[in-house]
């Protein structure tokens, strides 16, 4: 018998709902993105995001059910992102999901947002099964993890300061590209010289797989300041391309070194920054050189979405995970 999971995601600025069959097949995937609303503020405003989530959540869920071609009471269980993320937005999804599951007498599963990003890889790679290595890169997270089972994760490296996507946003603002930084830097970098500036590739003390991106961000800001003092014009595209190269070099070398030292033959890229074309290309190339299979989801499953929550929710549901009616949002939930 098929297991249909309704996934609900509202951890940041996307209100999303989806239905997935047996953890792999997406029957519907509805995303309401608020990005246009937050652009004028230069980043996500939690209170505005929360207000939009509560306005949209019911229509997004209803559309997901309708698009899947099912009735609400045909779902097996509800899976909802419980953290990490912004507490106000998370609470909307959690409150809605709890009441929805309760009213229908369906089980509820609380899902870790990052685990969801990893699970996005199951959708288009039916052969993918744990164990494998995953590099998760987004606006709020930079993780290198070993997925030992569907619900078991070993963190091998994480950022000590800024997330990679956060550094993208800050640099994009500094060179006048605006928000959101990731796609804008990715685009303009195609016209720039990645060797124009030599920004630092930070190593973190004695932890070979940890990341630090505040140094490269500061180096870019210093470079811009120095140019301003001297009255020099800076080439936006060169700065963007050189910054992006510095960031992707570190991400790729850490991931590949990590795979080699653990004997992993496959790396699954995940998270919002996983749709960055430079990162995808560099990782793919390094993978080919080192005999490591590189996979990543389509962009629609890289951005925050609920299909990934439904897929991860399926595996956690099958393992017996159940959330109570007192499920709370946990903004800094550990992996």
């Amino acid at each position, binding site marked *: 018998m098929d297991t249909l999971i309704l996934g609900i995601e509202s951890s940041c600025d996307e209100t999303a709902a989806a239905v997935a069959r047996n953890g792999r097949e997406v029957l519907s995937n509805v995303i309401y993105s608020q990005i246009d609303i937050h652009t*004028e*503020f230069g980043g996500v*405003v939690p*209170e*505005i995001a*929360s*207000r939009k*989530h*509560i*306005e949209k*959540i*019911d*229509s997004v*869920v*209803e559309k997901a059910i309708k698009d899947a071609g099912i009735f*609400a009471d045909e779902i097996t269980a509800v899976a909802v992102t419980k953290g990490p993320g912004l*507490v*106000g937005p998370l*609470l*909307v*999804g*959690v*409150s*809605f*999901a*709890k*009441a*929805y*599951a*309760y*009213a*229908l007498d369906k089980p509820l599963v609380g899902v870790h947002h990052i685990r969801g990003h990893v699970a996005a890889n199951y959708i288009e790679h039916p052969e993918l099964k744990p164990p494998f290595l995953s590099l998760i890169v987004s606006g709020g997270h930079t993780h290198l993890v070993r997925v030992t089972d569907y619900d078991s994760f070993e963190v091998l490296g994480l950022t000590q300061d800024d997330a990679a996507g956060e550094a993208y946003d800050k640099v994009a603002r500094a060179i006048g590209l605006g928000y959101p930084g990731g796609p804008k830097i990715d685009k303009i970098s195609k016209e720039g010289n990645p060797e124009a500036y030599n920004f630092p590739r930070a190593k973190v003390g004695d932890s070979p797989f940890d990341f630090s991106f505040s140094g490269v961000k500061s180096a870019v800001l210093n470079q811009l300041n120095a140019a301003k003092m001297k009255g020099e014009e800076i080439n936006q595209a060169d700065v963007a391309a050189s910054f992006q190269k510095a960031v992707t070099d570190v991400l790729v070398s850490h991931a590949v070194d990590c795979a080699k030292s653990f004997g992993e033959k496959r790396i699954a890229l995940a998270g919002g920054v996983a749709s960055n074309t430079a990162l995808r290309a560099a990782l793919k190339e390094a993978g080919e050189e080192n005999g490591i299979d590189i996979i990543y989801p389509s962009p629609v499953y890289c951005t925050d979405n609920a299909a990934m929550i439904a897929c991860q929710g399926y595996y956690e549901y099958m393992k017996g995970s159940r959330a*109570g*009616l*007192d*499920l*709370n*949002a946990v903004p800094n939930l550990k992996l």
Partner: protein
Amino acid sequence: MKVLGIDSSGTVASVAIIEDGKMTACLQSDTSYTHSTTLLPMIDKAFSMADTDKKSIDLVAVAKGPGSFTGLRIGAGSAKGFACALGIPIAPVSTLDALGYLFPFADGIVCPIMNARRSQVYTACYKNGECISQEEAISLDELFEKLYQYEEKVIFLGDGVPEYKDYIKENFKAEYVIAPPHLLKQSAGAVACLGERMKESGKAVEIRDFKLTYLRKSQAERERDERNKL
């Protein structure tokens, strides 16, 4: 008609069930626990106390604001989730109306005040169960000036009372009383009753038309509006 009432707009979490004019369950708590962990268990308990099948509910009445932004959304999220699953309408009840409805037949002016921070209260005035003013966020001094014009005794209630009791005592220059603890704060019973009235007069809404009333923009929007004025 069976109505589920929910109010989590302030420090109180409150749930009530009304069935054909009878309140079959009412739960109220005012603790430091967060609504996100307490509200759904309270709803579940209300159904078991009322011995009623949750799927037989015809209407969800919920406090639509003003109030704590996060508290309102926990209530609204729960109400929407419940109503969406069962395909039933929502009655969006003003938090202030529900407070005013705790004293529907009182002599004088019923004046709920809710703590709105920034030295303001969310407030409105009621007489014979009807709202006779606008809902607004204003300072107590501004509110006092408005109340003097009615030239009637005032009944103060709401979660602003504990915080401003001394200020009222020292500065309010007309006759007044303060509501006793059991009638001081939000009650889902009043929300459910008003919700039922709304449904009967065709004012309940489909879920997609339900909107919260914050009476105040977010800080980021206020700051932007200030900048744009300059």
